[in-house]
């Protein structure tokens, strides 16, 4: 082992050349070269001389009383430096992003399988793991609350003393009961979504280094450094300035890194031992180490006139939040906001419930409640189309939301809302060639090289869906980002350095920041510094918000730097600043006669500006009526899926996905496509294979052997149509990009399966036995359509 400290590497990134550099170009990622060489330091790759390894003892029971914890044998195990329990938490024993209700280390009671009970630091990860086995915890096992619906029964055991209801969201829009009389057709349906995992590839990990001031430096993968910092400091009992966080390389996030994982534990062990401590979960532990997408049960009632005009929607959503709050109150709200879909609905009655159970805690995952809502709504829309004997795309277009549409929450949609256009575009893309019945390459058939069919029993189906989600934080939440931009001279060239706390998780916010600086300042060399807490908050890399928010902050800071330079140039030349621009490293007059190198203005000292960016204010919804202007912006995507189904074996091959999304402005078209393709793949996973299976509160499949995510064989080619309708309120007209493709992908695929098979398929992921075994889950009873006489 070398003696060099391995710490996050982003500060050493070089920038690409200017001709590929500005906004609207597919500038290459500044971290791309390091990543392909294996030199990019992820949070699990950190190393420092003398570091110890931390490990976590977790509860094997979903619900149990802790009678005693005996660490004596573990503490004397060879190589062990510390064994800590709840008694050793220096500050707040409870933490949480929204509500501090989760024990740093459990005492008294454990509420889910995998809840941390004790932590160990040792000189080898295997020594730490073996020491965990020496810790003796006596449990009195209790009956777990495992069903979300019965959790609301007043006689149910309580997961928390406050009861099992996290939040009931009510949205009352118009008068559903009065509207019933106008409906010629009413269709009802119940739908269920299984628990999906973010399954980011880089495991939870971090390195905590104690510092001489009694504080700690934590290098960690996360989505939001500042909210982590607050929680960690509170639990360590330290002031904020003694807990400094730096973003280490993040191997994907998708919502699963919003809540804390190794953070407090690694810091506690480092402060206790006086040694650096690294913690890395393995894959199995990762399944217990982060929250998941909420499993949902939904009920829908759509009423429409005979010609297909929606009259009312009545819908309910029940989310299993698991053992702790995490972001459940916000996820249920977001699910309810969009339960009626991307449609104009004159009357709606929506109820959403998030509950506590002793299942694994659920929280943020890409789409944040709107994924489940879109699956339910779009499933019932297809059912409505069938009842009306109407083309499902035509029905959707007829009711499509547009600018001015009043949402069930009473807010009028502003900004572009091209729902009908997106649907038309996916409908009008050429379909893949029909199978002609002759034998084809096995790899093009369901089951692939398993050689289970040569085309017999295969049916093709086509399905559509469209989704809507709010971009940025909704409901009156504080939402801003901060950027520092510094122009200096380095090696005879101008250099721009950008510093923000925005978490790069793979989505490309580092590329976007550099592109904006190149465009605004006309400088080729741009370095995006490592994100950390020494700069102001950038908010979370979630809600599809960073390009808008941190992009906005970087743009403002660049504008401020530019203004100072132009003022200096105006002084020097006597030309007014309006007639000067920054171009290719120079200040240039609009007639092109005068050219002054930028470095002339920063020869003595750099020019530096810090700016914050805020979007327009939102407000919380009314707790009784759900009314309020809760949202900043809306983003939309539509999908068309073509599937081949082996109806005898229940195997599915998605032949093609076609999608259209309005992105406002594609700052980096290649990265936008990457978001759309990746989001579509996660939607495909939810449709066909991804589910954390829970039995009596225990996870049955915490591995990539048993929790399946799409491989390159599962993913079909994706046809993409990107619209760029500028958003009036955002920098460059951008809109959020990352989440919408994850919404509509799932229901489009399942609607295609329904088209191919005629089956109801109420639940995702759809399993082979749902198709071939005709497994009709007894819980699912469907009211048939009621047609008014």
């Amino acid at each position: 082992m070398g003696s060099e400290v391995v710490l996050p590497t982003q500060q050493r990134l070089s920038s690409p050349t200017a001709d590929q550099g500005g906004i609207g170009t597919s500038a290459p990622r500044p971290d791309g070269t390091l990543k392909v060489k294996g030199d990019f330091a992820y949070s699990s790759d950190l190393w420092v001389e003398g570091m110890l390894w931390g490990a976590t003892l977790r509860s094997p029971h979903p619900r149990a009383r802790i009678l005693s914890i005996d660490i004596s044998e573990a503490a004397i195990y060879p190589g062990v430096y510390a064994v800590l329990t709840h008694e050793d938490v220096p500050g707040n024993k409870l933490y949480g992003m929204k509500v501090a209700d989760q024990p740093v280390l459990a005492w008294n009671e454990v509420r889910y399988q995998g809840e941390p009970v004790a932590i160990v630091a040792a000189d080898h990860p295997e020594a730490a793991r073996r020491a965990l086995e020496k810790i003796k915890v006596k449990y009195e096992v209790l009956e777990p609350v495992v069903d979300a619906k019965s959790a609301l029964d007043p006689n149910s055991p309580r997961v928390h003393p406050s009861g099992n209801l996290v939040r009931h969201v009510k949205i009352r829009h118009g008068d559903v009961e009065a509207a019933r009389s106008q409906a010629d057709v009413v269709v009802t349906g119940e739908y269920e979504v299984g628990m999906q995992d973010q399954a980011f590839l880089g495991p939870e990990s971090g390195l905590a280094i104690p510092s001489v001031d009694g504080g700690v430096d934590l290098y960690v993968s996360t989505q939001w450094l500042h909210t982590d910092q607050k929680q960690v400091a509170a639990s360590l009992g330290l002031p904020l300035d003694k807990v400094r966080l730096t973003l280490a390389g993040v191997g994907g996030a998708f919502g699963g890194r919003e809540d804390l994982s190794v953070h407090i534990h690694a810091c506690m062990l480092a402060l206790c031992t006086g040694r650096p401590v690294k913690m890395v979960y393995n894959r199995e532990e990762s399944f217990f180490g982060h929250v998941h997408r909420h499993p949902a049960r939904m009920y829908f009632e759509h009423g429409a006139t005979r010609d297909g005009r929606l009259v009312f929607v009545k819908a309910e959503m029940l989310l299993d939040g698991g053992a702790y709050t995490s972001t459940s109150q916000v996820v249920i709200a977001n699910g309810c906001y969009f339960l009626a879909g991307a449609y104009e609905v004159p009357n709606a009655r929506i109820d959403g419930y998030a509950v506590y159970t002793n299942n694994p805690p659920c929280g943020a995952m890409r789409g944040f409640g709107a994924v489940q809502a879109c699956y339910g709504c779009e499933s019932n829309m297809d059912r409505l189309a069938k009842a009306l004997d109407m083309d499902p795309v035509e029905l959707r277009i007829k009711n499509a939301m547009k600018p001015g549409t009043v949402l069930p929450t009473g807010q009028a949609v502003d900004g572009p809302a091209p729902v009908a256009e997106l649907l038309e575009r996916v409908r009008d893309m050429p379909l893949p060639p029909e199978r002609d019945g002759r034998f084809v390459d096995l790899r093009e058939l369901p089951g692939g090289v398993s050689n289970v069919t040569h085309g017999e029993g295969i049916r093709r189906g086509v399905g559509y869906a469209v989704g809507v989600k709010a971009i940025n934080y909704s409901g009156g939440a504080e939402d801003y980002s901060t950027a520092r931009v510094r122009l200096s001279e380095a090696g005879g060239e101008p250099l721009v350095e950008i510093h923000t706390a925005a978490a790069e998780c793979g989505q490309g916010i580092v590329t976007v920041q550099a592109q904006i600086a190149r465009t605004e300042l006309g400088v080729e060399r741009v370095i995006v510094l490592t994100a950390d807490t020494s700069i102001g908050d950038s908010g979370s890399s979630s809600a599809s918000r960073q390009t808008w928010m941190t992009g906005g902050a970087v743009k403002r800071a660049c504008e401020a730097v530019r203004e100072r330079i132009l003022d200096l140039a105006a002084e020097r030349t006597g030309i007014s600043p309006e007639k000067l621009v920054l171009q290719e490293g120079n200040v240039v007059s609009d007639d092109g006669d005068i050219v002054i190198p930028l470095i002339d203005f920063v020869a003595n000292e750099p020019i530096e500006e810090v700016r914050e960016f805020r979007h327009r204010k939102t407000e919380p919804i009314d707790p009784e009526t759900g009314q309020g202007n809760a949202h900043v912006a809306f983003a939309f995507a539509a999908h068309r899926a073509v599937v081949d189904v082996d109806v005898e074996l229940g195997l599915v091959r998605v032949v093609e996905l076609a999608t259209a999304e309005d992105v406002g402005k594609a700052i980096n078209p290649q990265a936008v496509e990457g978001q759309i393709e990746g989001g579509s793949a996660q939607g495909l996973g939810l449709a066909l294979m991804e589910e954390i299976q829970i039995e009596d509160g225990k996870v049955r499949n915490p591995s990539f052997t048993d929790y399946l995510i799409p491989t390159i064989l599962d993913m079909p080619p994706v046809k993409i149509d990107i619209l760029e309708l500028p958003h009036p309120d955002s920098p460059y007209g951008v809109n959020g990009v990352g989440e919408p493709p994850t919404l509509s992908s799932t229901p489009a695929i399942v609607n295609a399966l329904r088209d191919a098979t005629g089956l109801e398929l109420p639940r995702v992921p759809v399993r082979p036995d749902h198709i071939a075994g005709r497994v009709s889950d007894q819980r699912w009873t469907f009211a048939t359509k009621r047609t008014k006489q």
Partner: protein
Amino acid sequence: MRLSCNVNGEWQQVDDVWEYESLLYVLRERLGLYGSKNACEQGECGSCSVYLDGALVCSCLVMAGQAEGCEIVTVEGLSDREDDLHPVQQAFVETGAVQCGFCTPGLIIATHALLHRKSQPTDAEIRENLAGNLCRCTGYEKIIDAVRLAAKRMVR
């Protein structure tokens, strides 16, 4: 346990290796070669792919002792020169096949192995050969683009 093996062209001697350590652990934590990734450590994701005596393996499934006397090539050893990128690496950067990048080293080794066996693979062959490598960010489209681009350039 003492382990001797040739890693990226240099013979290495590693002392105090536990019998239960994987080749992946030795590469990462004892030799400081963090390019091979630890995403699942059970042979499902391909992120730790390396060459072991010329064969593509998941280094998490190789016990350290099995590597005794073997030649190992990791993602760090693909390019001939320190500052150069191998055409496969270059293609991954250019096509946008890298997002979070955690799967990238494994996919690059797997692509390298594929193009070594078959210089102009069809799309179906690309999919079949890379089916052991999980990626959670990209949806694989740009990875296929990268393999096509690398294949085109390497034949020249």
